[in-house]
């Protein structure tokens, strides 16, 4: 009983944490990047302010927009939030842990992606179509890389449940495995692509020739745009949390642990996320955006890395 209560409590805390942290993370990365480019940069809280401003604005829809434009933002946001609720942050054994399947998370992200792409196509503008087509095409390369990368840690953990994976990798003493490192690299590449970050896409520009993600949002305004922005932030948080949970599971509170462990876990999580954010900022500052049709090569390389990781594991499990 107590355990169930604790599980529900951690779950609620987790959701609150990630919802609060998501815009901060986006703001933080922006701030870091600005600092590295020698600018002062806006406060990390700026995304929160932007959201608040957008919510207060009256949303305008095109005359021929259908219900899709009104429903999709909610659906996309809800799907991302649901997915994020499943990825462990500071503690294992949350109430929804049995549900926290990696494939389901990928499915929910696909649902959000589909909602976004539908919005892009709803009004029938050229930019929307362009963005939607590119987004879905990139996904065709990202999904295989993600799945094969997942194969490595699913093999080690014996399950695709994130909670179990995190627990297994935390306790299993697998140590630093070259295959896991390769899989992590693949996951990072996928995360970059999925979040429309440099070098796949540039979240800071509306330059039409190169953009993917923002092109679909051109017709959104007011609270719809706010929802999309929040969704993007959630998605970034989700991917970083995913990588943290799988590849850097140390410090996370085990299932059934008490508040102290939670606090420690939280601390560890914040540190790890901050580290990843810093790495991302450095990476984005140091590299240029690539041409759209180079993206498959980028993701293909990730896929190859993931395959290599899996093959190494096959060999090592075959030997042992």
């Amino acid at each position, binding site marked *: 009983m107590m355990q169930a209560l604790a599980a529900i409590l951690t779950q609620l805390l987790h959701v609150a944490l990630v919802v609060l942290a998501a815009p901060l993370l986006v703001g933080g990365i922006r701030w870091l990047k600005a600092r590295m480019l020698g600018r002062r940069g806006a406060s990390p809280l700026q995304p929160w302010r932007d959201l608040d401003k957008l919510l207060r604005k009256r949303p305008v829809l095109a005359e021929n927009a259908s219900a899709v434009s009104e429903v999709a933002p909610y659906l996309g946001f809800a799907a991302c939030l649901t997915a994020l609720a499943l990825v462990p942050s500071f503690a294992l054994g949350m109430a929804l842990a049995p549900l926290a399947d990696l494939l389901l998370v990928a499915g929910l992200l696909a649902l959000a992606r*589909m909602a976004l792409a539908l919005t892009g196509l709803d009004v029938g*503008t050229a930019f929307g179509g362009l963005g939607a087509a590119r987004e879905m095409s990139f*996904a065709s390369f990202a999904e295989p890389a993600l*799945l094969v990368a997942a194969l490595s840690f699913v093999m080690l953990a014996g399950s695709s449940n994130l909670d179990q994976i995190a627990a297994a990798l935390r306790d299993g003493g697998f140590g630093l495995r070259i295959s896991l490192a390769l899989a992590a690299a693949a996951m990072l590449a996928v995360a970059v692509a999925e979040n429309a970050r440099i070098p796949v896409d540039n979240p800071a520009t509306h330059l039409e020739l190169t953009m993917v993600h923002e092109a679909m949002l051109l017709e959104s305004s007011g609270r719809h745009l706010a*929802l999309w922005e929040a969704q993007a932030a959630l998605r970034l948080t989700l991917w970083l949390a995913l990588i943290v949970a799988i590849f850097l599971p140390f410090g996370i509170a085990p299932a059934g642990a008490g508040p102290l462990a939670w606090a420690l876990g939280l601390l560890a999580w914040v540190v790890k996320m901050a580290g990843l954010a810093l790495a991302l900022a450095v990476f984005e500052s140091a590299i240029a955006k690539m041409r759209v049709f180079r993206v498959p090569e980028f993701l293909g390389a990730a896929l190859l890395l993931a395959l290599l990781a899996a093959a190494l594991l096959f060999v090592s499990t075959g030997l042992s």
Partner: protein
Amino acid sequence: MLRACCDVPLLHLTPRAIGSASERFRTFPVLSALGLVILAMLLLAVPAAYGGPERGWVGRLVHAGSLAGCVGFMAIAVAALLGGAPAPLPLPFGPPWGGARLALDALGAWFLLILGLAGALASLFALGHPPGPARSLVPYPLFLAGMALTLAAGDLFTLLLGFEAMSFASWALVAADHEQAENRHAARRYLGFALFAGACLAAAAGLLAAGAGALDFAALRERPPEGWRAAAILALVLAGAGAKAGMVPLHAWLPLAHPAAPSHVSALMSGAMTKVALYVLARFLFDLCGPAQPVWWGVPLLVLGVAGAVLGGLRANLEADTKTLLACSTIENIGLILAALGLALAFRGRDLGGLATLAAGAALLHALNHGVFKTLLFLAAGAVLHAAGSRRIDRLGGLIHAMPVTAACAMLGAGAAAALPPLSGFASEWLLLQSLLAAWKLGDITLQVLAAAALALVGMAVALAAAAMLRLIGLVFLGRPRTPRGAGAHEVGRLERAALVLAAALTLAFGLLPGALLDLAGPAVAQLAGAAPPRHGLGLLAGEGAAAYLPWLVALLLAACLLATWLLLRRRSPQATQRGPVWNGGFIDPPLVFGDPLTQPSAGGIAQPLRRMLGTSLLAAREVVDMPRPGEPRAGHYAASFRDPSEPFLLAPLARATDALAGRAERLRDFSLRQCLGLGFATLVLLLALIAWLEGG
């Protein structure tokens, strides 16, 4: 009466004596009912032959009768799944040398359920449609009856009889609109592949029966084939059933035939007929060939299935015709099911019973889910064709405003096809991916690498399917109308809408309760996997201690999040939305007479990224841009094309070989009378020399 061929080694078939009274009584309820339903379907063709288009009641009779029959199929299938397999029922007719028999075990019943569902939906839709001419009414019930007979066959002859009857009847439906040359071409290719399939299956049946000395399944199971015979059966069944199911590389007929048929027939062909072919494949390879086959048996299925999944998914992204697009998506889904079957076969060969049940469950569940959502999508395409007058994506658009119900249902179907949780497609593909993630347990490094590659490609296929579905929904239902005819579209009639809504509801329901369905399919899964599957209950389990998927909980969570977001935002953002002119980055559409259709993304435009990324290498896709130089007054042109690899690498060489051989054969015809005599003389002399040689030596 002499006993039929009693001492023939092959055919010591039981005489057609009807079983004892008690046996008949025991078998009556399920199988007799099934036989009667099939018979009634056959009889429906009789009035259909006499009704022209002017007699609407004939069409209604045929479709209502088909609907009732399909509901009967469903009831019978569920009864057989829950109540266990009834004893085979000898038929009062049969081939000249023995008896035919009906049998319905769990495997057949599961596919009969799929047939019943797809058939009922299609018939309901057709009931609301204006009835076509007699030439599309007569074959329709025959088509359904042929499929049911294939599924309910208790021996190889009846199986092939139903299979070929199904092919022939559906050929008549594909050729229903035969005034157009492209439909004739499609029909011819379709029947050609069907004949090839029938021949391959007949050969496989012969090799099977040769070992067992009988044609009925019970006797065949007792003596499964071995050695080269088994391998030959594998190859022949793959070619035969694969050609009918749309397996790569024998899929070339599918994107042609499905669009040519009337929409409800396309739905049936895609939703049910390809499944019947898969049933035949499963029946031969899993059931009749016995459980003792080696692990590598799964490999060809897995490889071809995955290849089909990617190829179909990619082609679906490039096609410009709604029904062709859906047909290509069928190739993709059939590929996924085949891959799952291949995995099940491999797991079973390695004695990994639990994983085999996982993969077999994925195959069966996906067959059902695809049967429903593809039926839904084809019916929606039919509704669009009826309402907006075109199948071409570039002539449609913005139909969500005119056809809200159709659009909503189509979106649900597309969501399922794109494997979005919590819809039905995701559940079965989740099972497939889970079994792929566990495929490393097969042990052999070659198999492991193969399975990892398959995992990547299945992932790609799923994403490609999502892209294709987005393209379908986005261009057909969203945006603005592209032609005046499309702008004048209207919602379809009551019955058609009912069919669509029903199908959409089923898609949702199957997505939410896959565990219950899989439990219903339990006996069939056990039959395929050779091991008892776990009870799934409300969710899906990937095995002991492995991941689980609880779709109703996911749906609940999603709904909660949606509700919470909505409530929260209603507080924080109370302003009502306002309508204004489209922003479009500040671009103002040119003032054309009819709207601005050309500034919208086109079917080819949306396809561009994937065409360049994958199409150029896999499908030899080409783009030709003819851009006028500045100042030139002519219009620019853009043309994109691609070529399915099966055309240049399979069909064209075959056609060339046939033509060359026909040319050789033709030379004999140029012989003069004297030369013909000489030929006969040479034959005689040769034979004389032969016997002289044989007798002398």
